[in-house]
């Protein structure tokens, strides 16, 4: 058990930071309060560096982490979470307590711990990241459930308190209630899986499936779990909340929502799929519910799951895109696009890791998903960062107002060149315009999909990219090509300049990661390897068998 701690140091670091932040944030001294963000940043940075450099290496994996189904994913996922988390942290500056602090600074009011939200906000943020990291090294249904809840519970509050507007409250309540519904669904699914196999340990469950096949009860559990978890990734039919919540929340929190729960959801889906098939199922096994599609690439999910994921992938990207086309609010548009991007990533899940013949980054759908999460995180943060870095002068109610519509972005390249060009670059990247990062994110999805013989799905993916091009094009070129309405109220930069930094960093990342992506891809390739050789539970003919022996 101590061995497991090797994996948990980043989470532990984050947890400690959280505690510190919770206390410091309530300090009466302005400078100390202000330091919360810095401390949080330092904690995340430390956790990231730790995860990147000190994670157990490949040799010790079998010994210490033998229980993990995706052993190499842990380090990668945590590093990824840490990096994007840092970028998000830059954005979070000034999200809460803005008026409060202004009044305190003006001397109209003294510091009142009950009125301040700063400590909670950063603590929740860190909790959520902790939960997300915990998802990555889950090897048990209980662990997974807790990690997922730890990821999402803080987000409900963050949404609600991120803005002073009523919309934020509405978003929070919708998110919370529907989230609870989703959580109940996957919890019930977990219960059924447990019931069917008698274990909550993923490894044991996998072995059980390997030995006895997947019983209908287990299959029902798996499907329900997948559906429940797909709430986190905003896949159809669990996507309804997305636009409302993203629109209602402050842009920086929307950026957070687009990355953190989504990553948690995808990690869970990957784990569930690994349990259900990738890790052991040979192609061509008979049985109606557990039929494995004998596709040329060798998708090794049970046919039911594959089909469901297939339909979900196709529907998710299509629904997301067609609804995004109609939007004028950038946040809402990005929300729908986030739905669509989940659909793209599901293609990677459908493709799966492939058989032993399909080694390599291009063939592995899991690697593609993991790589895409990074790409999506970077470029999406960029877009939201631009929105977060802009605002309108305060209206009658004294609150500053968000920039939201496409019209607000017009002429940004001349008024705020850095933000404008960041928007252009990030939108083009989301569009998939080569040679930006988004293109290289989609390419492995293409290759893996084709490897798995999912040509129709790949074509749907391609067509959806084209539909998406329509609105991304508007988003990309509104800052550059159009001139602002003379009558419109001018858009000004938010006083929190660090948000601009986030935008620029994202844009730079979108360009640079594309150029220097090779080593990243190498990491993803490793991270996407599903552990082969799950042993049989009851003493069978063979103790070990290579995964998916054709």
């Amino acid at each position: 058990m101590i061995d497991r701690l090797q994996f948990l140091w980043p989470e532990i670091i984050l947890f400690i930071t959280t505690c510190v932040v919770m206390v410091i944030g309530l300090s009466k001294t302005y400078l100390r309060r202000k330091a919360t963000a810095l401390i949080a940043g330092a904690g995340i940075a430390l956790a990231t560096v730790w995860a990147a450099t000190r994670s157990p290496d490949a040799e010790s994996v079998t010994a210490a982490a033998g229980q993990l189904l995706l052993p190499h994913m842990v380090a990668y996922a945590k590093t990824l979470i840490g990096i994007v988390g840092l970028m998000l942290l830059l954005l979070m500056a000034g999200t809460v307590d803005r008026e409060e602090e202004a009044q305190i600074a003006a001397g109209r009011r003294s510091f009142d711990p009950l009125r301040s939200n700063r400590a909670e906000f950063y603590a929740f943020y860190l909790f959520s990241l902790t939960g997300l990291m915990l998802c990555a090294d889950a090897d048990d249904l209980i662990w997974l459930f807790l990690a997922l809840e730890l990821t999402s519970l803080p987000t409900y509050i963050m949404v609600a308190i991120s803005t002073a507007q009523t919309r934020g409250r509405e978003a929070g309540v919708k998110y919370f209630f529907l989230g609870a519904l989703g959580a109940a669904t996957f919890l019930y699914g977990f219960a059924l899986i447990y019931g069917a196999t008698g274990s909550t340990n993923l490894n044991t469950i996998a072995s059980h499936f390997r030995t006895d096949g997947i019983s209908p009860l287990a299959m029902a559990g798996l499907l329900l779990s997948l559906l429940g978890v797909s709430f986190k990734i905003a896949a159809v039919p669990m996507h309804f909340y997305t636009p409302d919540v993203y629109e209602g929340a402050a842009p920086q929190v929307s950026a957070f929502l687009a990355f953190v729960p989504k990553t948690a959801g995808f990690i869970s889906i990957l784990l569930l799929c690994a349990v259900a098939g990738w890790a052991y199922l040979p192609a061509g096994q008979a049985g109606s519910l557990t039929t494995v599609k004998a596709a040329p690439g060798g998708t090794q999910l049970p046919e039911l799951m594959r089909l469901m994921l297939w339909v979900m992938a196709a529907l998710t990207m299509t629904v997301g895109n067609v609804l995004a086309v109609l939007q004028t609010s950038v946040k809402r548009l990005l929300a729908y696009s986030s739905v669509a991007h989940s659909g793209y990533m599901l293609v990677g899940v459908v493709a799966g890791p492939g058989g032993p013949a399909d080694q390599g980054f291009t063939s592995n759908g899991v690697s593609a998903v993991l790589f895409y999460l990074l790409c999506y995180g970077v470029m999406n943060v960029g877009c939201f960062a631009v929105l977060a870095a802009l605002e309108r002068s305060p209206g009658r109610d004294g609150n500053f107002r968000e920039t939201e519509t496409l019209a607000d972005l017009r002429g940004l390249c001349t008024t705020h060149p850095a933000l404008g060009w960041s928007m252009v670059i990030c939108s083009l990247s989301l569009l998939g315009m080569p040679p930006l990062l988004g293109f290289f994110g989609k390419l492995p999805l293409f290759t893996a999909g084709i490897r798995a013989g999912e040509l129709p799905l790949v074509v749907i993916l391609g067509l959806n990219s084209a539909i998406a091009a329509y609105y991304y094009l508007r988003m990309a070129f509104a800052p550059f090509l159009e001139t602002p309405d003379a009558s419109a109220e001018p858009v000004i930069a938010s006083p929190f300049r660090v948000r601009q930094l986030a935008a620029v960093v994202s844009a730079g990342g979108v360009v640079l990661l594309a150029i220097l992506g090779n080593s990243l891809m190498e990491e993803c390739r490793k991270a996407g390897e599903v552990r082969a050789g799950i042993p049989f539970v009851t003493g069978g003919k063979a103790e070990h068998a290579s995964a998916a022996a054709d």
Partner: protein
Amino acid sequence: MMLFSLILAPLASAFLVALGPAAMARRTALAGTAVTFFAACAALYLFNWSAPGYQFEQSLPWLQQVGINLSVGVDSVAMMLIALTALLGPICVQSSKTAITDRVKTYYSWLLVLQAAMTGVFASRDLILFYICFEFTLAPMFVLISLYGSTNRRKAAIKFFLYTFTGSVIALAGFVYVAWFSSRLTPGIVNAADPSLLHEFPQLGKWTFDLATLEQAARLMSPAKQGWVLLALLAGFAVKVPLFPVHTWLPLAHTEAPTAGSVILAGVLLKLGTYAIYRFALPFCPVAIYEHAPLISVLCIVGILYGGLICWVQTDVKKLVAYSSVAHLGFCILGMMALNNTGISGSILYMINHGLSTGALFLLIGMIYERYHTRSMKELGGIAAKMPIWATFMVFFTMASVGLPGLNGFVSEFLCILGAFQASSAWGSPTATLPNGLPNAGLWGSAGAAHPGSTLGSLGPWFAAVAGIGMIVAAIYLLYMVGKVVWGPLVEPHGHDSHGGHGGHGESESHSVLPTDLCAREIGVLVPLAVLCVALGVYPKPALDALSGPVSDTVRVVQTARSNATIPADSVKEAAR
């Protein structure tokens, strides 16, 4: 290094333009394109025209996890198109001097970026690098159209972007499929299909987008698979060409684009499609293309006649020339589908020639537009009386476009049609003896005598004959245009003094800048194109000789693949499960 510098030079000057002052933008851009042009001239000089293979090859490792490298290299086909691109660069910059007066920095920098991307398309030897450049041409063109175009520019730009983007995404799926197929090849499979190919695969079983490897690998695909790949590739490239049913973005884009944009669009961008078909569709799916050539050719022919007739009823001069591109490129692809040396050589030459003559026509129309701010044939007429120099050039380039022998258009058009004419296996098949020698029995069959000038292929004289009607139609609409605009009684839009030498006092600014007839700068822009039109028409031999190597290779590939089409069909199906 040569090719990288050809790509980087415009890119670097784009940055210089963007960072420099607006007043210097045009001169910087001109210098940049001129440097590129001279570099291209140097490349032309250093290029060994008698060698058939690729030259200036270079490869820098990039995303090796995906098998993507920065590989460049050109054969004579690509070299010519790069030269065309480099030539049009300074011409476009010069032609924009008076036409573009605001946001000049943006304009010239995107123009330069566009040039770099286009050069990249022709230079790449890696499918993804190609695709990157291919797609990246869209953004600059989108900007040029939607910022500097005429009234309906936004719609045109979006349509242009989305239409071609949609197509090329599907083409990407085709590329990936081929790469996947290649990655699964094992020595066993290759051996079973064609043992002689084994040495062609240094990276057997690896995922790569290297063109040379994939060319070899793709041939082992079964005809059915080739058919699907062909469909995917055509989905992307036929839109770009554009072939008949997917052409509607072109007239709109052309009409709305600024002059230089139209020149680039007609001159080079459309050639990306034809070049891609030549470079990828032919070697990747030789059997499928052999089988489906008649179908594609029918589309070409419909495009030729349909597009030509539509030209005839246009009132907007620019739209007329735009539709004429649909017709012209129909000839180009028709020649390519002949799959013989004549046809493909003609087709490649056609790419260059169409770029020169149609590019020049767009320049000329732009010059008129700058003066009169209209392109409607109802408002313009008899310009020859007022602008004899312009009229001379107009008639000249129209004749080049019509395909008058002695000018460039003829050589390529004739070769394309001849290629289609020759390419029929019916020529070779002996038919029953004719009892009375009447030509009605077995019209094209040969009574025992062979036809030495025929080649294998799936087109035939009827294709050539029907496409040939397009030559008549071309004469109809182009002369209709010349008759309306150049000849006839002088008609000018309202507000233009029809008697005075310097018409239109008090007209808009750009009008007063320009003299009535062409100025030295404008003549300077047109003369190089005219000289090349004559040169390529009178002495096309060097070009044709240079093409013969690569074209022969392509033809050999297609014909070989077709002749042993049955072998890979079976063995690969077995081996690749």
